[in-house]
């Protein structure tokens, strides 16, 4: 998601080609070509410029609607409905060929990852591991972070693992569903004993009302994330000995 303007000039984009299986966009106003995944202009009068990222989430509609009941949803175009992706499109896409692969990583090219970029580092998290473990603590560069899966079992968000007003770096623990003390919370922190929801806000306890700072993330295939983030590290699931 990108802010579609540079120096006050609004840009309208068209899909204009493919570069290493990530699409190129061309803006109508200057004819410059932009790489979709990086937001960087690669050719044309605006070559070298970058679009500003608009923070976004990939969520289930139910989770989003519960958080944003006043929000609006893109409407279908009746004439195009038959051309939209089928419900199992993501399963079918796993079969699509790739021309870029990084076999030395041990990861299949189309392994779904959650990619994070910030604090001078890039890091990728296997999506299945995130959904399985629900709450994962890790670091992005030297910054402690937290990745949380929503109760819907599909939506994931990343946060800085720092509570406003608290000096120490807390640990976060999953709250089991139906626990009477923290009925609506997903997780609890070790520093204040507060219960936190999927929006990263404390809904019970000493930190009630405080919110964790979001870390931008993108769900992407491993080959694409790795190709455009060559210095990325990968989260490996810790196995019990």
């Amino acid at each position, binding site marked *: 998601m990108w*802010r579609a303007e540079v120096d006050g000039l609004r840009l309208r984009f068209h899909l204009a080609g493919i570069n290493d299986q990530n699409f190129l966009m061309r803006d109508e106003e200057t004819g410059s070509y932009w790489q979709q995944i990086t937001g960087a202009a690669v050719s044309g009068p605006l070559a070298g410029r970058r679009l500003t990222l608009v923070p976004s989430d990939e969520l289930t509609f139910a989770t*989003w609607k519960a958080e*944003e009941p006043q929000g609006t949803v*893109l409407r279908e175009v009746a004439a195009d409905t038959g051309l939209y992706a089928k419900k199992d499109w993501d399963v079918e896409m796993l079969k699509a060929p790739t021309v870029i692969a990084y076999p030395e990583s041990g990861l299949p090219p189309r392994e779904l990852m959650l990619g994070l970029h910030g604090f001078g580092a890039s890091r990728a998290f296997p999506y299945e591991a995130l959904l399985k473990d629900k709450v994962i603590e890790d670091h992005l560069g030297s910054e402690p972070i937290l990745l949380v899966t929503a109760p819907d079992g599909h939506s994931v968000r990343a946060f800085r693992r720092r509570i406003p007003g608290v000096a120490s770096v807390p640990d976060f623990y999953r709250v089991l569903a139906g626990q009477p003390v923290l009925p609506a919370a997903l997780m609890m922190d070790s520093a204040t004993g507060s219960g936190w929801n999927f929006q990263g806000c404390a809904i019970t306890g000493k930190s009630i009302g405080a919110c964790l700072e979001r870390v931008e993330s993108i769900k992407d295939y491993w080959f694409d994330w790795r190709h455009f983030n060559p210095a990325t590290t990968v989260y490996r699931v810790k196995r019990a000995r």
Partner: protein
Amino acid sequence: MKTTHPGRRFLLYLFPCLLASCILLVYPVYVIRPFRAQGARELSWALAVTRYRAPFMLALVAAAFTALVWYWRRERRWLRRAGSAAAALAVAGMAAASRVNIYELMFHPLGPPSFTAAGQSKLDGDEMVIAIQVGQVARAYPIRNISYYHIVNDLVDGVAVAATY
């Protein structure tokens, strides 16, 4: 003194026009295509050809039709005239085709987008959406929808946004 047959001279002029216009048309399509790894330099060249080929194509069309007029003044046989005209028109056809980006035809962008209130949407709860918040406005783009257009040019609370997938 031996003079070159008009037909041969015409071909000598037209063949380079045909070849050059074909290369200028096909090279970017060949490089920038799906399921192929592009190198940075290769991509740069292909995009440069796309951006700067128009005047060259015009010059090639002008050269082809100049040669055609010259040839028709010297050739009366209708079959040869028809063949030469077809060749010149082929150059013009490739020049016209070079004005069209096939990807922009295949992946036509969504026109001005329209939206439904969250409470009135008939989307299933488990449908995945890309969600953003800009200013006071929360907006969701269903992935099965946006993945067809790949780009939605939108205005969210006065901010121009390119929703891409």
